[in-house]
C-alpha cells in the first residue's frame, strides 16, 4: 500500500477548538472532525458547491493584524490575538480552511439563521411524513428537530405542485416535497454526464422535472434517491414497502462486476428490502449502479435450489456428500474442478485444496461485458483476482470451457465438480454433460443441475460472509445479511466436507480457520484476518499478476495498466 502524501496541514479554530486540517478543507468537513455538526442540505462532498440551501451558515473571522506593521493585535480581555469577525454569516460549504480561520457555529445569530431556514423550508413542504418513505432518514425531520423552532407561524395556503411524477423507470418524484437543493441535477450532470434533470419556472414555484419525452433512466438513477435529503425522490421499487427504522443494515459488496462497489443491505426478519451504496472514496465514492441494487432478488427467485439431490432424488446432505466422495475417489485423477469467479476468496482457497486433494485440473469461466466507465467494469465476475491470489487459477478465465470439453471427449475427465457454474452455458454440449458425472454446488437451478448426479444447494452472497478481491486488487469483505433458505448450506462447510470425503486432510469450513490457513499458505495474505480487515478494504500486492491481460477498461478509481491496454489489441 502506498501511503498518501502528507497534506498541507493548517490550524483552524472551531467553536474554540483548535484543529489541524488539510488546507482548503471546507468548514463543514473541518467542523465534522472536531465533532461539531454544521447542518446542510445542498452540500454533498462529491458534487460541486452551489450554496443554495443556506442551512450551513456560520460566522467566520480572522486574527487581527495591524495593517501597517503586520503585527498581531491583541485582545486585552483574553490576552489572545483579537479576531475580526465578519458580521454577515457565511456558508460553511464554500468557506475553505485557511491558516488562522476562526469559525463559530454556536452563536445566537447562527441559531436564528438555522431556525429561519428551517421555517422557510417547511412553509411550502407538505406535512405528509406519516406516508412518506423518507421518514426516519429525512434531513428535514432530523434538522427541524435539531435546529428548528418547533412550531409554525405559517397560515397561508401552501403551493401546489405535481405529487407523482414518474421521472424514470425507477424513480418517482413528489415536487411538493422537493426543497430545490439541486443535488440530483448536479449528480446527473457531473457524475453520470446525463444532463436530464432541471428546474423549470421560477421562485417558490420552481419545479424539478425532465424535458417532456425524456426520462431519468440511466443506470445510476437511484443515486438521486439516495442523495435526495428529503422525500422528493423515492425508489419505485422500495416505495411504500417498509419503514426504514425497522431495517437492519449489513455491509456488503456489489458483485455485479470486478469494481466491487461497497454496499449496505437493508433487511428485516430475513427479508431484504433494498441495497444502497456505502461510501468508499477508493472504490465507489458514494455511488452504485441501479442494476446492483436488484441483485438481492435472486435470494427469493423461483429457481432457487433448496433440496439436496442425489441422482435427481431428494436426500440428506450427508448422504449426498458421501456419494460425492465415493464418485471422486473412484475417478482417480480424472476429475476437473470448475471454479467460479463469483466465489469468495475463502471458497477459492478451499476449492484449491479440493483440487489438490484430487489432482484435479481447474477451470474458470469468464464473464466479459462492456464496462460503463463508471462503476461497472468489463469483468462481470467479482472475484477472478481472488482466485489468482489464492492460486486456484494461474491464468485468466476463458469464455468457454473448450479445453475441458476436449478432455471429456478423450475420457481424460470423467467427473466434473462445478461450483455454481452452468457448464452447458459455458460451452459443454449435452453429450459431453451426459458422458461425465457432475457434482454441483450452487444456488440456482440451471441446465447443469438437471444433469448433475449430486446437487448441493449453497448460499448467495447475502447469506454468508467472506471476502472478494476487486479489480484494484483490493480485498473487501461482505457480511451475512439474512439466513439462507432451509436446505441450503454454507459453501465453505460443503467444500470442507467434500475435501474430507474425497480423502483430503480434515479442514474446518469456517472463516477464522480458513484465514488462519491463508495467512500461512498465501504470501500476500499474511497478517490479514477477516475480523480485522477494514470496512474500506485493503490493497494487496498486484505485481505478481502484472503480466496478465485483464479485461477491464477505465472506471472510477481504476486505470488499466499500460501493458494491459496494448495486450488487449
Amino acid at each position, binding site marked *: 500500500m502506498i501511503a498518501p502524501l502528507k497534506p498541507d496541514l493548517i490550524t483552524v479554530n472551531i467553536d474554540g477548538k483548535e484543529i489541524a486540517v488539510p488546507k482548503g478543507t471546507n468548514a463543514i468537513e473541518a467542523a465534522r472532525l472536531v465533532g461539531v455538526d454544521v447542518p446542510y442540505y445542498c452540500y454533498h462532498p462529491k458534487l460541486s458547491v452551489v450554496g443554495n440551501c443556506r442551512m450551513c451558515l456560520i460566522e467566520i473571522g480572522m486574527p487581527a493584524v495591524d495593517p501597517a506593521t503586520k503585527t498581531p493585535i491583541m485582545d486585552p480581555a483574553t490576552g489572545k490575538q483579537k479576531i475580526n469577525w465578519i458580521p454577515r454569516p457565511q456558508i460553511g460549504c464554500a468557506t475553505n480552511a485557511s491558516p488562522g480561520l476562526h469559525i463559530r457555529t454556536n452563536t445566537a445569530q447562527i441559531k436564528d439563521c438555522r431556525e429561519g431556514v428551517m421555517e422557510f423550508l417547511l412553509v411550502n413542504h407538505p406535512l405528509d411524513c406519516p406516508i412518506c418513505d423518507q421518514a426516519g432518514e429525512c434531513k428535514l425531520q432530523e434538522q427541524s428537530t435539531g435546529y428548528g423552532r418547533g412550531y409554525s407561524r405559517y397560515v397561508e395556503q401552501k403551493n401546489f405542485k405535481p405529487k407523482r411524477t414518474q421521472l424514470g423507470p425507477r424513480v418517482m418524484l413528489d415536487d411538493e416535497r422537493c426543497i430545490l437543493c439541486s443535488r440530483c441535477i448536479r449528480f446527473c450532470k457531473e457524475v453520470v454526464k446525463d444532463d436530464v434533470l*432541471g428546474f*423549470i419556472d*421560477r421562485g417558490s414555484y420552481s419545479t424539478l422535472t425532465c*424535458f*417532456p419525452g*425524456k426520462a431519468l433512466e440511466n443506470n445510476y438513477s437511484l443515486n438521486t434517491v439516495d442523495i435526495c435529503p428529503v422525500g422528493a425522490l423515492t425508489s419505485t421499487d422500495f416505495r411504500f414497502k417498509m419503514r426504514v427504522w425497522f431495517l437492519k443494515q449489513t455491509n456488503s459488496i456489489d458483485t455485479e462486476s470486478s469494481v466491487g462497489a461497497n454496499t449496505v443491505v437493508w433487511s428485516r426478519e430475513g427479508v431484504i428490502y433494498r441495497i444502497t451504496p456505502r461510501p468508499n472514496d477508493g472504490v465507489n465514492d458514494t455511488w452504485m449502479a441501479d442494476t446492483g441494487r436488484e441483485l438481492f432478488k435472486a435470494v427469493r427467485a423461483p429457481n432457487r435450489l433448496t433440496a439436496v439431490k442425489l441422482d435427481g432424488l431428494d436426500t440428506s446432505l450427508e448422504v449426498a456428500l458421501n456419494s460425492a466422495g465415493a464418485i471422486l475417489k473412484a475417478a482417480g485423477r480424472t476429475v476437473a474442478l470448475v471454479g467460479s469467479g463469483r466465489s469468495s476468496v475463502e471458497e477459492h482457497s478451499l476449492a484449491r485444496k479440493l483440487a489438490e486433494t484430487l489432482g484435479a485440473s481447474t477451470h474458470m469461466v469468464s464473464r466479459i461485458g462492456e464496462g460503463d466507465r463508471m462503476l461497472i467494469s468489463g469483468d462481470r465476475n467479482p472475484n477472478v483476482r481472488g482466485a489468482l491470489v489464492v492460486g486456484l487459477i494461474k491464468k485468466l478465465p476463458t469464455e468457454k470451457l473448450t479445453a475441458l470439453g476436449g478432455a471429456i471427449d478423450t475420457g481424460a475427465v470423467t467427473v466434473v465438480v462445478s461450483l455454481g457454474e452452468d457448464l452447458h452455458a459455458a460451452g459443454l454440449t449435452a453429450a459431453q454433460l451426459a458422458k461425465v458425472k457432475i457434482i454441483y454446488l450452487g444456488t440456482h437451478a440451471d441446465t447443469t443441475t438437471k444433469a448433475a448426479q449430486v446437487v448441493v444447494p449453497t448460499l448467495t452472497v447475502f447469506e454468508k460472509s467472506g471476502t472478494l478481491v476487486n479489480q484494484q486488487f483490493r480485498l473487501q469483505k461482505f457480511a451475512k445479511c439474512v439466513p439462507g433458505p432451509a436446505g441450503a448450506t454454507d459453501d465453505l462447510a460443503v467444500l470442507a466436507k467434500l475435501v474430507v470425503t474425497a480423502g483430503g486432510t480434515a479442514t474446518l469450513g469456517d472463516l477464522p480457520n480458513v484465514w488462519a490457513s491463508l495467512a500461512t499458505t498465501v504470501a500476500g495474505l499474511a497478517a490479514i484476518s477477516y475480523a480485522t480487515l477494514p470496512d474500506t478494504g485493503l490493497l494487496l500486492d498486484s505485481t505478481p499478476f502484472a503480466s496478465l491481460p485483464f479485461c477491464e477498461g477505465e472506471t472510477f478509481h481504476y486505470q488499466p495498466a499500460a501493458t494491459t491496454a496494448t495486450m488487449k489489441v
Partner: protein
Amino acid sequence: MSAAISSSMNLKPATLLRIDEVITHYPVKRSATLPLLHLIQEDVGYISEEAITWVATKLELQPINVYEVVTFYPMFRQKPIGRRHIKVCRTLSCALLGGYKTCEAFEHAFNTHRGEISPDGEVTIEFVECLASCGTAPVVLIDDDLHENVDVAKAKKLSDQIKSEASQRR
C-alpha cells in the same frame, strides 16, 4: 429524435440567417440560447417543445437546458397568443397612478381576462412587472411599442384603434 425534427423547423430564411449569425457572437454556443429563442418567437409566435429541442440540437445542448431557460423568463411563451400583445405595467409607480384600472379597461374593451386570448383573437392582455418608464405612468407595451400615461380614457382609445385596424383587415 433530432432526425425527426425538420432541419429548418419551417422558420423564415431570414430568421435562419440571423440565427446562424448570432451564434458567432459568442465563444460558447450556449450563450446564444436567449437570442435564438427571441428570434424563433418573433418568427413563429411562441416556443414549442419542438423548438426547444431544435435550439438544443443547434447549440449542442440537452433539451432540458433550454426548457429551464424558456420557463424562467416570462417573455418566452409556450402557447400562441392573440394578434396583439398588450402588456400593462403592474408595479408600484404605475399602480399608484391607476395601472390596475388601465388593465381592467383593456380587459373590458376586449371582453377578456389577463393571460387569455380575447374571444375575437385580437389581443392577449397581461400584467407585467416594471417596464422602466415610471415617470410616464401608467405605461403599456403593445407589441414592441411603449404607450405612456395610459389612463382609462387612453386605454379605451388604444383599444378602439386596435379594433378598427382589425375590422379594416377583415
